[in-house]
């Protein structure tokens, strides 16, 4: 197998290296790739969509159909991970573990009918080895709001600077994953329930595809945002810019929820118990 792999890799490499001699050299401004499609994008984007960030405009408008399915790929991966791993209807464990937050002492309660009432100073844990680290938890708790704020900035400012729905969505998702890593999965799940997360994934993509379908209902082609002008009361070119913002928000939601979804399922083998 090793020799076979080596032969295939070397053969492919040789073929590819042999053909590079026909390629334009690096950074050549007169290469076909830089002279056929891209000048139109660079020179016309601002007047056709009123978005200064050309990548955003091409991503969400000129090739918005690609991006819709890109979001769908992520959604599909989330559904597939859930479908493959989630263990449904798990039996309640016969005993529960509680840890006293101040002393780090762990209580083991076997009779579930007699769970003590005043558990304010205790937190529920799933395994005895769950680490307890005050510094990490505090730092993360302080940082997470700023991370989320930055994520929202990245989503909202995608028209004028590098950023957009995917980047912002991933940062937003990472903030929840950080919560799950620094505390545990249970705490993170109390902030964003599994059901809500699952629905949010679909809603995010639905915002995108729904915007496209709305354009279709308004009489223009699928994903032609200039149809939104009549609803938003702006001119068709500004409507394109607003349409891009709407779909970016959808993308952000879908990416955030799916990242969390995939992390939850893979890190806990679908049991939703202990984080890493």
């Amino acid at each position, binding site marked *: 197998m090793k020799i076979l792999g080596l032969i295939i890799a070397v053969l492919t490499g040789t073929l590819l290296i042999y*053909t590079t001699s026909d390629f334009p050299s690096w950074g050549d401004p007169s290469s*076909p790739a830089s002279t056929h499609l891209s000048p139109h994008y660079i020179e016309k984007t601002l007047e056709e969509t009123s978005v200064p960030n050309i990548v955003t405009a091409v991503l969400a408008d000129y090739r918005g159909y690609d991006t819709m399915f890109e979001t769908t*790929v992520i959604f*599909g991966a989330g559904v597939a991970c859930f479908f493959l791993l989630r263990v449904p209807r798990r039996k309640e464990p016969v005993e529960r573990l509680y840890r006293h937050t101040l002393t780090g002492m762990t209580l083991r309660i076997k009779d579930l009918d007699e769970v003590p009432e005043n558990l304010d100073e205790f937190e529920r844990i799933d395994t005895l080895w769950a680490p307890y680290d005050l510094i990490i938890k505090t730092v993360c708790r302080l940082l997470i709001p700023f991370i989320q704020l930055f994520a929202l900035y990245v989503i909202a400012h995608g028209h004028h600077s590098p950023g957009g729905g995917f980047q912002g969505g991933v940062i937003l998702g990472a903030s929840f994953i950080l919560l799950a890593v620094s505390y545990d999965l249970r705490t993170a799940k109390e902030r964003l329930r599994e059901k809500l997360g699952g629905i949010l994934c679909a809603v995010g993509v639905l915002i995108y595809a729904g915007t496209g379908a709305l354009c279709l209902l308004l009489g223009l*082609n699928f994903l032609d945002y200039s149809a939104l002008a009549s609803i938003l009361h702006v001119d068709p070119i500004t409507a394109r810019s607003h349409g891009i913002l709407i779909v970016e928000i959808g993308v952000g939601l879908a990416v955030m929820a799916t990242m969390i979804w995939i992390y939850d399922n893979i890190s806990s083998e679908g049991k939703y118990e202990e984080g890493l």
Partner: protein
Amino acid sequence: MSSQYPALLVATPLLAALFISIAGWVYKKLCFPIAVVALSVATYASIGLLLRVLNEGVVHYRLGGWEPPWGIAYYVDHLNGLVLVVVCVVALLNLIGAKKSIDQDFPDKIGPFYTLYILMVTGLLGIVITGDAFNLYVLLEIAALTGYGLLAMGDKRAALSTLNYLYMGTIGACFYLLGVGYLYIVTGSLNMADIARILPPLYESKAVLAAFIICMVGVWLKMAFFPLHAWLPNAYTHAPSASSGLIAPLVTKVMIYVMIRLIFTVFTPEYAFNTLALSNAFVWLAAIAIVMGALFALAERNLKKMFSYIIISEVGYMVGGIWLGNRAGMTGAVLHILNDALMTLCLFLVASNIVYKIQGHSFDDLKGIFRKMPVTMGALVVGALSIIGVPPTCGFFSKWYLISGAVQAGQYGFVAALLFSSLVNVVLFFRVLEIAFFEPFGDHDGHGHTESIDEAPLSMLVPLLIVALGLVIVGVYTGDIVNLVIQFAIPREIL
């Protein structure tokens, strides 16, 4: 409204998949009806689109209203109009037929299953309808990823076989992407028609040759063309029957469509058949694929695995038919996309019914099953006749075109391979039917409830019977299909 059929065809299943996903969390009983309605609408739209293509010629649709080389456009001609109908009909019939087995296999995960199922259909439809080379890659990955999810929930070995499929599938898709990158670097375009327009002066370029080879290898990996087939048999055999009933008939066929589209529209037949002198080699490779598929199938003692090897053999038919490079061979290959999708669906629906009742698919499980499930096995007989190629079933006609094309091109090796595989198919199915008919029933070790086994429920039988009937009807109307649709699907310059 009919001008929006292309958009409806893809958008309806996509939106439906999202609604199903939400319904899976809120009210599970809605999942199946939404799926059926969505696929029915898609089927309706696909038929409407095909009729429009027949009347008006090629249909273009601009997504987002942008001009094609800058935006993405759909491009529907006779070829993909036909394949779209095939995809919709097969997906719809299998969905209805598989409902019971889905309820049986995944009682807790109905929502995600239907979501993945409909998303996969969306991906396949998108691959077939698009006119943009990069967009095809994205949809390829949608169909592939959802396919991995659907396949991996089968029996104990399913996860491992699917993981192997994932490695191979990803390499295949990446090779395709790389090929598109090569085309992009020399032409600067991603739109298929635009690339074809720019390419002719570059025919001698090494980069275009590399792009062609890389794209072909990628697509062959995905369609399990021998010797790149190793992932397919295990992945399909261990899959749940509802998934294999969708994936086995469609994925390989859609990938063959992609190959045809690359040859016809992107690289143009002029380049593929005249500039490159590789046709002969590829036809021989196809002949070897047919023979090897048949031999592997002969060695199997498991129904689903045998069917999987038959698919590998059939892929050889179609690849060979295209590379014959003449009108008869290509007509046979395109016709065989339609026929083979129906035949494979028929076989896998039979397997699905048997698995539903007996929970097994090895030959030992089939003993005496003819008396217990006469209708299912009757359908298997029709499917078998079609695979063997007995008139008036449709399998005969595509094989006829393929053979006459091969004779025209002087490829007698290919003719011999076709005849050999027909003979092997006779042996294969005779052996199955002999076991099912003559062996005594009741040796089902470890399966317990042998007494209660009877015919599969009506909702599984009806789609199966429709497919079996379809095999004969398509066979009878082959002449019309070829005259009305397929002859326009093949570029005029090919004689």
